[in-house]
């Protein structure tokens, strides 16, 4: 390969090496995986994000769990029943690894953070919840959202409507029909863009799924007693 710089000067060995590696990056298209690195639902920057979602926290532990490893088909069926919907599609399976964060203040566990992927109308949604030790939502956060009304959905005012809710509230919400019987706190969550009803319902489904998974994997199922399958 010729080693001529933009200014027409012969380049040194170091420049040649840099160039070859850069060409490899371009040629083999390595820019692409850098943009789409690890798939799953990890926090992009856990050190920063944990501090933001739990101000005053001093540390966190990361747990990796999957339905297939924790309980297999039986667990999947129970989770689907509690969610009120089946896992569907190429990417919503029992093998999906879930990353769960236990947040600490000094030696004390003060809460949890967990995110799930959800299929939206135009792309993927990553819904993260910050929860207290009882599984009550303290913070709601879209880490990623491909939607026409993305700005409205990412508005903090929308996320704040979820604060204070728990799985007990979400049990009354049927993700398949998008209705809450009898109408309660979930019905009071306002869709920020009526034209994006599908994405709104996808958000509620992701939140309920997130709460069920946290109950199963982190809390030890205290909300199971409220479930009326």
């Amino acid at each position: 390969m010729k080693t001529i710089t933009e200014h027409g000067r012969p380049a040194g060995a170091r420049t040649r090496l840099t160039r070859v590696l850069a060409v490899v990056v371009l040629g083999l298209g390595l820019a692409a995986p850098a943009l789409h690195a690890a798939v799953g639902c990890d926090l992009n920057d856990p050190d920063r994000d944990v501090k933001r979602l739990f101000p005053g926290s001093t540390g966190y532990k990361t747990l990796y769990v999957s339905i297939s490893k924790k309980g297999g088909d039986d667990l999947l069926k129970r989770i689907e029943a509690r969610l009120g919907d089946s896992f569907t599609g190429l990417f919503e399976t029992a093998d999906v690894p879930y990353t769960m964060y236990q947040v600490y203040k000094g030696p004390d566990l003060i809460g949890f953070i967990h995110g799930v992927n959800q299929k939206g109308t135009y792309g993927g949604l990553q819904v993260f919840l910050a929860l207290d030790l009882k599984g009550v939502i303290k913070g709601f956060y879209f880490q990623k959202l491909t939607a026409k009304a993305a700005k409205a959905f990412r508005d903090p005012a929308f996320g704040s409507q979820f604060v204070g809710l728990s799985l007990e509230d979400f049990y009354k919400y049927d993700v398949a029909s998008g209705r809450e019987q009898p109408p309660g706190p979930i019905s009071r969550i306002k869709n920020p863009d009526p034209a994006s009803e599908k994405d709104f319902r996808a958000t509620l489904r992701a939140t309920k799924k997130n709460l069920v998974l946290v109950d199963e994997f982190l809390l030890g199922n205290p909300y199971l007693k409220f479930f009326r399958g």
Partner: protein
Amino acid sequence: MKKISIFEVAYKNLLRKKTRSLLTILGIAMAAWVLVSLFGFNRGYEASLNKDIDNLGFQMLVVAKGCPYEAATLMLKGGTGLKYMKEDIVAAVTAEPEVDGVTAMLMQVVFDPNKGETGGLAAFLGVDPVSFPKMKSALPFKAGGWFEEPEAAEAVFGYEAAELEQREVGDIYLIPEKEVEVKVVGILERTGTQDDGTIFLPIKTVQRIFGVKGELTSIGIKVKKDADIKAFEDKMYKLPDVQVVSLSQVKTTIMTLVSTARVMVFSIALIAILIAMMGVINTVLMSVMERRQEIGILKSMGAMAGDVFKLVWLETIILCISGGLVGTALSLLTARLTDVLVRNLLPYSPSGGLVAIDFKLVLMTLGVVTAIGLASGVYPSWKAARMRPLDTIRSEGES
């Protein structure tokens, strides 16, 4: 009276100083571990690099003139400042007799404000719906297939890109920033290559959506098997405002870089082997000196010099083979860890496994370690064999 074999005697002798024998075995195991891992890396890296280049479908890449490093950086910073070539260059390249196939590509990157806390990037690769699938015929589909129309508003997702966007065949995908909808027509299988994270669109569609009509960022060239690549490369350099990247050269350069590092590591391995060898000689020699009287009694009872030589030599070989077995087992168990470590150290790593350990390599290493054992054992065995019974018994009396 039960007869015991010379092998049992040698084995029991080693057990008399368990810690010393164990440490010697560990020393040899370390040397064997380094040896297997290095040879495994040597094979694995080249095989993976070849696979990456083969998967690319073309051996030569023509990009717009300018520093590709700068282009890559700019691309990663937000897609501005990309170097472009005019589309008509494709015809000029195709006309060359050495060319078997040509495919034009256009990469574009957009800023997606709804990715993460501060936004992120989304990359799109515009490819020709006719020539690209032909060159990438090895790319397997999980669902669907390639787009067929040159200007279709359709997309093919690499596996990880589809997983991130939760897209399936038939779904709609919204290109961030441009707010353009495309239909997903294919999802690729996971390949372990850069294709996993790529979103492919027809090149004309990318040109239209991003307003870069008639522009390309690269051209992949498949050269005929019997063509003189070097002469063809020189011809390509004469094209105005382009830079030619021959992947065979890239491979050679990478392999040269890796070889330089490898020579250093092989030197370290050689030193490790020499240290292990000295350790073996020291251990066996000490053991021989401690058993002078014993050897003297053996000889006075009728043991020949050859028998003593065989006994001590066998002890050395047992130590070396045991160390070799432990070392190769260790290298097999830690192959994945070695892969991760090497991947973090190297400036560029191909996508496949970097450490390839097979039965042949294990056998070869055991052979080398046994040879080391045979060589290391000669001096202590010779020393033991030539001991005179009278001298050894006399030295007992003196001590």
